[in-house]
């Protein structure tokens, strides 16, 4: 990104919350890539590790030696306590006025972070969400069944919820910290529906939401996360959002 485009950054600080569980290699890679792509930006990385047995926390401590304890923060929890509360936990320790949420498994590439920041600076949006379903975005590593359920779920949600965003279940997002704090307290869903509930509630509350294209590389082949029970959970979530938002 050109130097001049960062002029509007001002005193903004970005807290990047990355929940982990058994991601010892990926967390190292993602931290390197974040530092590579966010030169000249004031940011911190908050790793919320849920007691990984594979030594994820040891790697994070080594990364702190390289990058500094003020740039890479380890805020561990004793055991697996769920994604939603991981964000709340990370949020408590965030010192930035903006918060980025991303997955640690490298399906979210840090090279898109500048476009999130740029979009927010241009539009003043409260939320910038990454979308896989527009030009410039895309998915790699999904079979036909996975694509079909994804499209079906999206058409259902667009028809019944009118959410105003094209990718509801994506979880690569930039929030104004105040907006995230406001929204996350009213979200009750778990798992897949969590991201959808976040964005629908944000939309209902009138927060301005902008989108940027991202690509999504699913490296865990053969373990499609969408089985029959997930589809039932999704439909329940849809009905829940219909009657509560």
């Amino acid at each position, binding site marked *: 990104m050109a130097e001049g485009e960062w002029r509007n950054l001002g005193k903004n600080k970005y807290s990047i919350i990355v929940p982990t569980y058994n991601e*010892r*290699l990926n967390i*190292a*890679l993602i931290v*390197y*890539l974040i530092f590579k792509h966010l030169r000249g930006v004031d940011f911190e990385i908050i790793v919320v590790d849920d007691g990984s047995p*594979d030594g994820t926390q*040891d*790697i994070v401590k*080594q*990364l702190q*030696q*390289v990058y500094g304890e003020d740039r890479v923060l380890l805020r561990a929890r004793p055991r697996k306590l769920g994604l939603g509360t991981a964000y709340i936990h990370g949020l408590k320790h965030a010192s930035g006025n903006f918060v980025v949420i991303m997955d640690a498994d*490298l399906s979210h*590439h840090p*090279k898109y972070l500048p476009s999130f920041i740029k979009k927010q600076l241009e539009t003043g949006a*409260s939320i910038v969400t990454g979308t*896989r*379903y*527009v*030009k410039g*975005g*895309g*998915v*790699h*590593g999904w079979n*036909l069944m996975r*694509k*079909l359920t994804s*499209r*079906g779920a*999206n*058409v*259902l949600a*667009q*028809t*019944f*919820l*009118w959410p105003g965003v094209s990718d509801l279940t994506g979880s690569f997002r930039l929030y104004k910290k105040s907006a995230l704090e*406001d929204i996350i307290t009213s979200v009750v869903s778990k798992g897949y529906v969590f991201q959808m509930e976040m964005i629908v509630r944000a939309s*209902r*509350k*009138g*927060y301005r939401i902008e989108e940027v294209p991202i*690509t*999504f*590389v699913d*490296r865990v082949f053969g373990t499609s996360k969408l089985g029959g029970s997930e589809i039932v959970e999704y439909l329940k979530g849809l009905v829940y*959002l*219909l*009657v*509560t*938002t």
Partner: protein
Amino acid sequence: MLTFGKLTYSQDKGAPFSPMKHIFKIISLLAAISAFWVGLLQASIIPRTHTWLLPIYLVVSLGCYGLLMVGVGLMQFPTCPQEAVLLQQDIAEAKGFLKDKGVDVGSD
């Protein structure tokens, strides 16, 4: 008549209120359509046998629309095989750098 959307929100004043649960928006939309349909039945502008069939046409066309959207979405599903290659390059680069810095990226 049906003013949906973000008209009545004020985001600055603490917790904004939701004017209407979404399900009620959809119900009122359905009610409006039903009222229009009953009106058509009463007025008999078009033959009644046709008017009776209109809701069925509506449901069928909605279903077709849904299937069409899924089909089109599936055909135009954006994929990015080149990104997987680029990611492998980034991973190799990151591993090289981190290994030099003494971060244990060897195992796994």
